[in-house]
Each structure stands twice: as C-alpha cells, then as structure tokens.
C-alpha cells in the first residue's frame, strides 16, 4: 500500500516477519466498456492464514486507488476457484470511476477482532508473543499491481456506432425501421436481414453502407424536422442526438441534405464498398 510503514504485528508477506509466503500470480485484467474485469490467483503456504480465511476471521481484500479520479475502494473479490494452495479470485472496477493508472493492493484483512494472533512461523525474535488484531488490520500482504484503465468510449467525442442499436424483429416482414424515441437510435431488421448483417461482420463497410447509412439519413431528417418545429419535444437529453448534432455541426451544419451529411460522417461507405468489391468471387 502507498505510504506503508511498519506493521504493529507480524504479517505474512515477502519479509521475514513470518517464514511463510503469500503470493499473487496470474494477474489478468480485461477492460470492457462498463468495467475492468480482474482475475488473479493468490496462494500461501501458511496454514494459520488459510485457517483464518476458512473460518471467516479474515478475508481476501483488494484495495484499488486511482489518483486521477481521487477514488479508492476496497472490495472482497469473489472466489471463483481453488488451486492446491491458493484461491482464484475475480472482481471488477466500474470504468466510470477510474481514468489512467489504477493501483491495486492485494492482501488479507481481519474481519473481526482477534485477541491473540500468533503465527506458527513467526520470526524467532517474536518469541511466543501474540498480538491483538482489529477489524481491517492487514495480516497478509501480496503487494500491488497496476492497471491501465484504457477508455473504449469518449463521451465528448463518441463514435457514431455507439448511437445505434440493432434489433432483430421477428414480426418485421421486409425493409428496416428506425425508432428515434429511445436513448439509442434503434434499427429494426427482419430476422433474415439481421442474420445477414451479422454474417457480414467481417465487412464492416458493407454493414455501414447498407444499414447505418440509411438509418443515419433518417435520423438527420428527424433532427432537421425537430429543429424546424417549435412545438416538438426537445432532444437534448438523448445521447444519440448530442453526438450526431456535434458531428453535423463540425461539418457545416444541418443546411445540407441528409444524404450528403450521412455520407460525410460515415466517410462515403458506398464508394468504399463498391470500389473494393471483387466481383469474380468475393462477396458470397
């Protein structure tokens, strides 16, 4: 932990206070748009420590700190597996709470007062001494590791794709429909068309040209009509409106045709798709 000083009682760590080990290995983390998922293994050869955890007198703990967001929190990681001498633990950190580097300390803390803690393997200089331990006291310290909280989403400059959600509508018979009443622009497709869109996943420019482009045109038309109608409901609270409005304003404003604006925002997907097609055997 930052500013770690001396402990008032012996702790199982990489010092010689207790002739046992407490290690953190196999640390893995994966950022998603919502969370940073963390998985790690902790192991020890100290039977006293294992017993304290087993009885609930102590528990695994991870404290993370992010100085850039003046945030810190302590979590009790979920036990998702056991190894011969250790525990596989998982936890997650909300992306909304962190930015940049996050430092995580892995340890075991007391959950209750322990009147007389005495480690079997404590250093000989402690003799037979026992120690009073209070709730929250560290009794094992696995050190710290650092996570880079990369952001997949910038709310001040969101990617156009984040505005749209695609819905497989079993009741739709043909064509696509666009719903602009929700927090996202919901594009409904027939079951077969939706499945085809999924199969075209390795051709994103094809997906954009065939579905996103017309949906974006429809959205821009809707916004223009909304702006022109004083009685219509304000759209300011909708994320898709804020993002698309910003993009349109950046390229000159709404006094241009929806077709022109949508193509510019999406970087001319029709041109890109058709000029890249290999008609002799490409698009099966």
């Amino acid at each position, binding site marked *: *932990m*930052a*500013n*770690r*000083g*001396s*402990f*008032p*009682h012996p*702790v199982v760590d990489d010092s010689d206070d207790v002739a046992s080990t407490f290690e953190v290995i196999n640390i893995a983390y994966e950022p998603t748009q919502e969370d940073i998922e963390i998985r790690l293994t902790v192991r020890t050869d100290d039977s006293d420590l294992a017993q304290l955890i087993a009885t609930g007198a102590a528990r695994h*703990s991870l*404290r993370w*700190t992010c*100085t*850039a*967001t*003046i*945030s*810190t*929190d*302590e979590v009790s990681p979920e036990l998702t597996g056991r190894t011969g001498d250790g525990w596989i633990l998982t936890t997650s950190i909300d*992306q*909304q*709470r*962190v*930015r*940049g580097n996050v430092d995580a300390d892995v340890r075991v*803390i007391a959950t209750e007062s322990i009147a007389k803690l005495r480690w079997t393997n404590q250093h000989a200089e402690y003799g037979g001494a026992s120690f009073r331990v*209070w*709730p*929250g*006291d*560290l009794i094992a310290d696995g050190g710290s590791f650092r996570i880079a*909280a990369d*952001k997949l989403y910038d*709310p*001040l*400059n969101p990617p156009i794709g984040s505005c749209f959600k695609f819905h497989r509508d079993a009741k739709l018979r043909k064509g696509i429909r666009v719903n602009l009443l929700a927090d996202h622009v919901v594009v409904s497709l027939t079951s077969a068309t939706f499945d085809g869109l999924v199969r075209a996943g390795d051709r994103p420019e094809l997906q954009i040209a065939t579905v996103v482009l017309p949906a974006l045109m429809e959205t821009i038309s809707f916004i223009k009509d909304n702006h022109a109608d004083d009685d219509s409901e304000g759209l*300011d*609270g909708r*994320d898709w409106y*804020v993002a698309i*409005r*910003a993009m349109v*304003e950046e390229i000159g404003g709404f006094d241009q045709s929806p077709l022109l604006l949508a193509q510019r925002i999406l970087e001319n997907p029709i041109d890109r798709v058709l000029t890249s097609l290999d008609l002799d055997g490409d698009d099966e």
Partner: protein
Amino acid sequence: MSGLPSTPEARALTDDALASLHLAHGDATSAKDFLALADAIVLNPVNQLALPDRLGPPVAISPDRDGVGIDAENAPRVHEYLGEMARANAADPRLWVYLAFVTYRDYMEERWPLGAVGTWENRVIDRWLLPRVTRGSLIRHGIARLWWIAHLTHQPQASPGLAESDPHGYTREALRTEDRVLGIFDREVGAMPDVVKAVLDHVARGDGRDSEGHIRGLMKELTLMHGYRDIGVLDADEIRFVIEDASATADVDVGLPSHEQDVNGS
C-alpha cells in the same frame, strides 16, 4: 480582460487545443502574452467540444471573501451548475481548462491572477492548465478544485453533523482555508468520503481541533494507520474512534495540547 461574452456556458476543448495551450505556455514571454495566445485558441469554435448536456450559462462566482472561506460558496455553485458527473469524466482536463479560460474567466483572473505573481508560469500550470491529472493537480486547479471538493463532501440527504440542514455543509467546512484543502484531500485517505466527513465533524468542534497544525498531524496519523489497517472498511463509530485516537497522537507529534480526554469518551 479578454473579449469574452459574460459567463459563456460550459464546453470542453479538443485534445489538439490543449496541446496548443501548452505550447503557448512555453512560447509566451509574459502573462499578458500568454493569455492573448490562449484566447486565440480557446475561443476558436474548431477547438471546442459540446458537452453531452447543454447547461446554459452558469451563475457567476466571485472570489470575495465571505467570512467563511473564499470558495465556500463558489464550490456549491459550480457543483450545482455542472451537476454530478462520473469521476472518469470529471477527471477530463479538456473540461476544466475550458472552464478556467472561458466560462469562469472573470473569477480566475481575480482569484488566481497571473500578472501579480512573479512566476506566472507556475501559476498557469498549478491553477489554469491541468498538464497531468492527479489528485494533487485536481484539488489545485482553479475550477476543478471547486467541483471536486464539493463532489467529495456533498451530502444530498440530511444527516447528523455538518450536513444536518445544508447538503454542502461539509464542503463549506473543508474550504475554510487552502491549507486545510491540501492537508485533507491531497492524501489517499482524503478520497474516502466517510473518513473525510468524520474528520470535518471532528475539526468543526473547534477548541484547537481546527488549527492547521492539528489537522495536518491528524491526517498524517490517519495515513500512517491506513498503512497497516484499512480504515476505509470501518463503520462510522469505528472511524470516529480511530480519529480520536489519531488526534491524541497527532497533538503529541506536533507539540499541541493533547485532546487525549476525547479518546476516553469525554
């Protein structure tokens, strides 16, 4: 004074604009020169980003001392104007730098003037720009500090203590002096709202507990204690006990009359 409209609404700067401001800081030969260069950057619409929510113009803030603390009223106003934000977004320098140079420019020129100090370059770094986002830089930046301290101390629902009738009661107590702000919030334990509020409740009792020396010593003791005991997992009563215990030790360390009687429950 720049040719800005009065209290323009909040926006943000682009990353390129931020980089340009830093270059201007390096190139400028005087504070006046720097602000002229800066205005050319921040006022260019190409360098601005709209916020996800339109906020309209804010209530103006003023650095006039009101007997409580220079910013005791300003912090709640900034917090109410911007509203609650996800901390990841509230750590975005693009927002705070725009607010300092544009939206709250009048306040910044009075509260953190550049022409009146010998090393204007350092003041620009500490109070106007946000070259690196850290706990220390956020609580020093002229505008970010107001929102962040209010955010960390805001109590929306009434509770015993400083927030019994004022959701920003803890904010106002925290902002009594600049030393107090740095002493409390520029430490890891200052990021724990329950600990901060308990410290402020303790400090508000006065009788020497509100001296800067006592506060400094108390926070140092809490930081040392947090090295071997995670005080963030303690409940409210346990935190209060820890603070009284640390308070007694802190007074001894800094040579102040002891508050030891508080440890014994009186």
